[in-house]
């Protein structure tokens, strides 16, 4: 199987994008999910619903709105320009931003469920053992929710790998910068280069299969031992 340089570049970009998005979402989504799982505030409902909303818009339409928002006249664009970051569209970090936004529900929803399943008792026990809430969160809630983290990360990672509607819109298909593998495959198909599309797709599938298989083999059950 001979992949072109472009293919390899695209794969590398994809792995980097999905990895970074997953890490960022772990950081961003976890507190949101934790809050949703434990709060009794009335606005828990609205917040939970808003988090899931990006899902219902078609990706390229969402991409269009993000393009508007992040463009020179959009609010995000104003912000990034004021901060001296410049404009995000057509950059790798623009892709990251858009994907984070778009994949948020895939991280938050499974985590929320996992956190809810823990119940109060382990955290109470931790408190009687001198663990501050933050400490207990990291040493008790997170390990107990590990299968939830795995599910959330798989969904987020895979979804970011596969997504291309938003990516095309925000990324502008720049080789080495925003042309990720999904876009590359799409381009191959559009250009009727089926052999190359098949090859790259097969390669992605095999690679993803191995990664997923590894995750499954290792799939933790924190309660068994």
């Amino acid at each position, binding site marked *: 199987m001979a992949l072109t340089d472009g293919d390899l570049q695209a794969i590398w970009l994809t792995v980097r994008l999905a990895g970074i998005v997953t890490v960022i979402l772990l950081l961003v989504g976890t507190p949101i999910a934790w809050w949703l799982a434990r709060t009794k505030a009335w606005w828990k409902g609205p917040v939970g619903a808003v988090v899931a909303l990006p899902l219902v818009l078609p990706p390229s339409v969402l991409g269009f709105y993000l393009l508007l928002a992040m463009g020179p006249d959009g609010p995000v664009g104003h912000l990034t320009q004021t901060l001296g970051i410049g404009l995000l569209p057509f950059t790798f970090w623009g892709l990251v931003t858009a994907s984070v936004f778009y994949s948020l529900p895939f991280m938050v929803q499974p985590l929320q469920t996992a956190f809810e399943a823990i119940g109060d008792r382990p955290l109470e*026990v*931790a*408190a009687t*053992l001198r663990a501050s809430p933050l400490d*207990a969160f990291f040493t008790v809630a997170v390990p*107990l929710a590990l299968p939830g983290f795995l599910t959330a990360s798989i969904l987020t990672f895979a979804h970011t790998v596969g997504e291309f509607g938003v990516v095309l819109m925000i990324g502008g298909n720049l080789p080495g910068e925003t042309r990720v593998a999904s876009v590359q495959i799409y381009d191959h198909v559009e250009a009727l280069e089926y052999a190359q599309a098949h090859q790259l797709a097969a390669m992605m599938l095999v690679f993803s299969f191995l990664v997923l298989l590894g995750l499954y083999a290792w799939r933790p059950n924190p*309660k068994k031992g």
Partner: protein
Amino acid sequence: MANIQARFQLDWPGFTLDIDLALPGRGVTALFGPSGSGKTTLLRCVAGLERAPQGFLSVNGEIWQKDNYWLPTHQRPLGYVFQEASLFPHLSVMGNLCYGMKRSANVQASALDKPIELLGIGHLLDRKPDRLSGGERQRVGIARALAVNPRILLMDEPLAALDIKRKQEILPYLEHLHDALDIPILYVSHSPDEVARLADHLVVLEGGRMLANGPLAETLARLDLPIRLGEDVGTVLDAKVGAIDSDWHLARVDFLGGSLWAREHGIPIGRHVRVRVLARDVSLAQQAPGQSSIQNVLRGRVDAIGNDGHPGLALVRVRVGDSMLLARLTKRAVAELGITLGQELWVQVKSVALME
């Protein structure tokens, strides 16, 4: 003043907790009461796991709850043994034991050695809790709570799932602990045996309210409460080891009013001990008894006669010197012996339990 002041009110559908308590700041306070009487809820309020609005709690001079002030649980220097062992399922036994220890000030790792040995969990350290038996889990839970160097211990039926032999190994350790550490222990138990053995102070709960609250000996001698202790009603005497008969492994304990022989446990002469005398082990006689296997015979005066749980039984309180003993008799025996208030009698004590 070194003591515990607690005032909690909670209103749940079907249950109301309404407690206003002052407890001694050291020694073991037993919480006694039927299932659903609020014992666990009270412990949870003390631990800060349940929030009773407008409650008040001070422990040995430190205020933990007052008006809107609220010390979070993790800042309360307590050890808690939960009614269900509640081990962390994701940690090994060792991980569970170390969890609190690592987060507590002034605790060396060696602090675990003694509890581990005593609770017989040394061979389980690498196991995950799902591979432990019920009693093993409970023992790990106890060791875990002891390892945090607490300034107050809250124990919710810690020995319920344990066999007698194991209990008899652990109880002296807990006794020792409370002597050595000088911290208060709130101890929920359904076992009068444990209560009598460990407690200095007794709180009786029912339906979320306090029925009795006082020093153990006093509360145990109250004739209006005995039924709750069932077969194990009795009194506790403060005494001192007066002599040791090492041939027969017996110790003579002297108390205000006489002496008794008890099994010897290596307690040196002169040491203060507590002696538990169960009402069922005490019999009364008009004439000095002849030679029998009952070796403890005292002279006492009838102080009070009350009913026991069963209509055929009576509890007779006898004053021996300055101390009180309870005797459980059939009412027929009371009648046949013609027992009356103030009467002088021979008191035979078949067996006594000695506690350090």
